[in-house]
C-alpha cells in the first residue's frame, strides 16, 4: 500500500509541477484484475516458490562451498604433509628412521655394491615417532661440522647474490623504465629472452666463461652469474613503469637530480617489489642445486642444498633434521617480508 500511495503522490506532484492535468487511462494491471482471493493465492504461491528457490540456492551454495573447501584442504594438506612429515620425523631416532626408510635405498643403484634390488618391503611412512628424541639434531649440529660449513657456504653464496642482484636490478630497472629508447628496448627484449630460456641452456656457457676467467670451483663462479640474473630486472622494470611519470616530472621541475629521483622516488615506491623480489631470490638461490653441482667440484665449497639433494643411505639417520634446519632461514625470511611479498606480487603480477 505504501508503494501505491507513493505512486499516487508522485503522480500528483508531477501534475502540479507541470501544471497540467491529463487524465490518462491507466490500464489495469494483472494484479488489479485479480480479485483479492486470487491475489492472496498468487502471493502465497510466489512466496512458496521463492522460498524454495532460496533454499535450493543456499543448499547448492553450501555444497559447492564444502566441495571447494575439501579440495582446497586436500591440496593444502598435500602441500603441507611433506613439511609436517619432515618436521615430525626429525624427532625420530636414527635407528627408527633407518628401520622405516632404508628399504627405499634398495631400489637405488649402487646399493650395497650389488646394484639395485626390488624393494623387499613397503617403506613405513610414519608421522609419530616411537620415541621422541633430539638425537638427530645433536648428531647433526654437534657431530657434523661439515653440515655447518655447508650451511655457511649457502649463506656465503646466497647473500651476495641476492644483494648484488637487487642492486643491479634496481639500477637497470630504473634505466629501462625511465629511458625507453629503441636500443634499450632491444636490450630489454634480450633480457626477456634470457629470462625465458631454461637455466640449463645457459649453464654450459656459464661454465665455459667461469673456466676462462679462472673462477671455476670458486664462489665467484656462482655469485657473478647470479648477480647479473635477468629475472629481477624484468620484474622490477615492469613495476617501475607503473610509477606515474608526473611524479618524476614534478621532481625534475623541482630540480631533483637523476640520483635523487632514483633514491627518493623510484626506490621508495618500489619498496614492496624490492622486498618481494628479495624474498623470492633468497628462496630461489637458497635452493639452487645445479649451479654449485656443476661449477663447484670441490664438495667443501658446495652449499647445503647440494647435500640435501645427495642424501643417501648413510645420512638418512640425520636427513630429516638436516631438512628441518635447512628450512628455517627461508621460513624466517618469508615471515619477515610476508606483507611486502603479498603486496609486491599483487601489484607486479609476479607469477
Amino acid at each position: 500500500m505504501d508503494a501505491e500511495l507513493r505512486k499516487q503522490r508522485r503522480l500528483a506532484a508531477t501534475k502540479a509541477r507541470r501544471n497540467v492535468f491529463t487524465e490518462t487511462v491507466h490500464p489495469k494491471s494483472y494484479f488489479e484484475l485479480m480479485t483479492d482471493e486470487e491475489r492472496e493465492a498468487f502471493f502465497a504461491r510466489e512466496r512458496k516458490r521463492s522460498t524454495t528457490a532460496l533454499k535450493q540456492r543456499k543448499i547448492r551454495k553450501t555444497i559447492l562451498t564444502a566441495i571447494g573447501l575439501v579440495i582446497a584442504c586436500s591440496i593444502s594438506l598435500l602441500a603441507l604433509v611433506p613439511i609436517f612429515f619432515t618436521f615430525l620425523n626429525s624427532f625420530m631416532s636414527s635407528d627408527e628412521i633407518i628401520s622405516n626408510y632404508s628399504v627405499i635405498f634398495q631400489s637405488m643403484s649402487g646399493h650395497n655394491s650389488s646394484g639395485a634390488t626390488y624393494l623387499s618391503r613397503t617403506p613405513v611412512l610414519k608421522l609419530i615417532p616411537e620415541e621422541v628424541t633430539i638425537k638427530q639434531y645433536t648428531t647433526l649440529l654437534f657431530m657434523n661440522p661439515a653440515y655447518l660449513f655447508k650451511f655457511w657456504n649457502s649463506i656465503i653464496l646466497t647473500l651476495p647474490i641476492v644483494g648484488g642482484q637487487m642492486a643491479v636490478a634496481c639500477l637497470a630497472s630504473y634505466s629501462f623504465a625511465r629511458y625507453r629508447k629503441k636500443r634499450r628496448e632491444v636490450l630489454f627484449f634480450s633480457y626477456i629472452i634470457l629470462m625465458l630460456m631454461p637455466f640449463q641452456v645457459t649453464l654450459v656457457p656459464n661454465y665455459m666463461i667461469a673456466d676462462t676467467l679462472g673462477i671455476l670451483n670458486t664462489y665467484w663462479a656462482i655469485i657473478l652469474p647470479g648477480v647479473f640474473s635477468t629475472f629481477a630486472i624484468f620484474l622490477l622494470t615492469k613495476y617501475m613503469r607503473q610509477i606515474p611519470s608526473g611524479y618524476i616530472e614534478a621532481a625534475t621541475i623541482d630540480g631533483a637530480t637523476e640520483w635523487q629521483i632514483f633514491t627518493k622516488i623510484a626506490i621508495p615506491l618500489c619498496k614492496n617489489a624490492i622486498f618481494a623480489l628479495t624474498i623470492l631470490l633468497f628462496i630461489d638461490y637458497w635452493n639452487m642445486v645445479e649451479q654449485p653441482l656443476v661449477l663447484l667440484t670441490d664438495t667443501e665449497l658446495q652449499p647445503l642444498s647440494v647435500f640435501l639433494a645427495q642424501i643417501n643411505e648413510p645420512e638418512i639417520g640425520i636427513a630429516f633434521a638436516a631438512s628441518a634446519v635447512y628450512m628455517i632461514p627461508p621460513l624466517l625470511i618469508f615471515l619477515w617480508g610476508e606483507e611486502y611479498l603479498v603486496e609486491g606480487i599483487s601489484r607486479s603480477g609476479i607469477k
Partner: protein
Amino acid sequence: MKNRRKTIIRIMVAFVAGLALLTFFSNTIMNLTIPKVMGEYATRGNLAYTNTATGTIKVENETKITGVEGRTIDKILVSSYDTVNEGDVIATLKPVENSDDLKELQAQLLTLQREKEYAERAPSSNTLTTYEQAVDTAQDTLSEAQEALTAAQNKQATIDSADATILDQSAQLAEYQSALDYATAEKAGYEDQIKAIDDSIKPLADQITIYQSYGYQITIEEDTGYYRFTDPDTGLTESDPVGTTPVTDGEKIRELCYQINQYIDAKAPIQSDLDAAQAVIDSNSASIAACELAITNAETAKEAAEALPSVSDAQKLVDTAQTGLSTAQQSLSDAQVNAGIEADKAQDAADDRDKSIEELETKIAELEAKIEQTEIKAPASGYVYNISIEEGSVMEKNQTIAYVIPVDDRQCTATFTFPSEVASRLSIGDDMDVTMGYVDSCTIINIKPDPDNPREYKQVKCAINDAYAFPGESITVRADKSNKDYECVIPSSAVNKDNSGYFVYQIIGSSSPLGDKYTVKRVDVTVEDDDGTYAAISGEKLDKDAMIVVRSEKPLEDGERVRLEDFDSDKKKT
C-alpha cells in the same frame, strides 16, 4: 607489524649466531666426543718373534772370598781380574787393638757356667703331693656322697622293706606269742599233773622212806627214778603182782613201789609232754626274741632311712663332690702341666745354656783364631774380581769381599725373563739368538716360572759357551722360531680381549656429502699366534681388506664413530 618483524629479526640473528657458535666449537666438540684412532691393514706373512730379553752373565763355579768380621783391611794386594793361586794373600789385616769382644764373651761364658752349676745343685721339689691328697679327699667325699645318693634313692624301698619286715615280724610275733601262751598253759597243766603225780608219789615215797628206815632195801634208779624192790621173802619184785590186799610189808612195799613206778610211768609221758611244751616255749621265746630283734632292727633302719636327705640334696652333694673332685683333678693336672712346663723350661734353659756355652766357646775359639789372623788368602786359583772392599774398611759378618773365578773351564750362565707364551715355544737344549753381546753361543739349560710373576713370565736359564765370557757382562737374546705364513698379521695392540674372547675393531668407512665418516665394527677373532709385537689372527667375519684399529684415544664400542689419524692408503699391502 613492526614488533613482529623485530622478533623475527631477533630470531634470525640468534639462529645465525647459534650456528656461528656451533661452527666455531665444532672441531672442539668433535675432538671431545669422537675418539681418534689409528688404523692399519692386516698383512700376510709370518711373525717375527722380536721378544728379546737381557740377562747378566754369572759364573756358577766361582768361589767367594769371605771377610773377617770386625777386622779392618790394612792393604789390598790384588786388583780385579788379577790371577791368583790358592793360598796367595789377597789382603792384609790390621792387628786387633782391643779384645773387648773376647773378654765380654768370656765373661758371658763364665756366667753361664755358674748358672749351670747352681741349677744342677738345686733340690727338686715335689709340689704335687698336696694336690694328690686333695684329689683323694675329694674322691672319698664323692664316694660318700654317691653312697648317700644311693641310700637316698633307696630310701623309700628301705622304709617299705622295714615296714614289711615289721609287719611280718609282728604277725609272726603274735603267732609265736599265741603258741607260747598255749605251750605255757600246757606246761602248767603238765606241771599240775606232774605235781599231782608227785603229790601222789610223795606219801608213797614217804612210806617207802619209812620202809627204808625199816631197813628194806628199796633202791631208786637214778636214771629212771623207778623204785626197785625185791621182796627178800618172796623174792618177788615190785613188778610181780600183789594180791588184792597186801599183807606183808614186802607186799606193801612192792605195792608201793609198784604204785610209785606206775606213777612214774604215768609221769613219764607227762614229763615228756612237759619237756615238749617247754621246748616249744623255748623255741617260741627264741623266735619271739628274734622277731622283736628283727622289728627293732627294722624300726631302726626305718628311722635311719627317714633321717636320710632327699635325692636332690644327695645329688647336689654328689655334684658338689664331683665338682670338687674335678677341680682337684684339674688343679692336679694343671699342677702337673705346670710342673712339666717348669721342668721343660728348666730343661730348655739348661739346653740353651749348654748350647750358649758351646757357641760361646766356639765363638771365643773363632775370635781367638780371628784375632790371630793377619791376612786373607785366596781360597782357590783363578781371577779375582768384584773386590768390594777398600783399604781401611771394616768388614762385616759374612761379607763377601771378592770372588775368584777359574781361569779355564768357567761355567757361565745367564738368566732371561720371557713371557710365558713365548717361553712355551722354547725348549731345553735350544740355542738362543744373541742379538747383543759377544758370546759364542747360548744354550737353554733350564726353564722355570719367574718367582715374581710365575703365571705371566718364565725364567730361561742359558749356558754361555764362550771361553772369554766374564761375569757381569750383559747379553741380549731373541726368542725367534717362527717360520709360518699367516694370512692376517696385525699389531698385537689391535687385538683386544674380554670375557667372550679376542676381538678387533674394523674401521668401516663411508663417503658422503658431509665427508668421510668412519665407524668401528667389532669382529671376534681367533689369535693363532703372537710374538709380542704382531699377532696372527683369523675369523669368519674378518674382512681382510678393512682397516683395523691399532690404537685409540679412548675405549671403543661396537658401532662407535671414530676419527682416523695417520691414515695412509699406501700402507695397504696386497
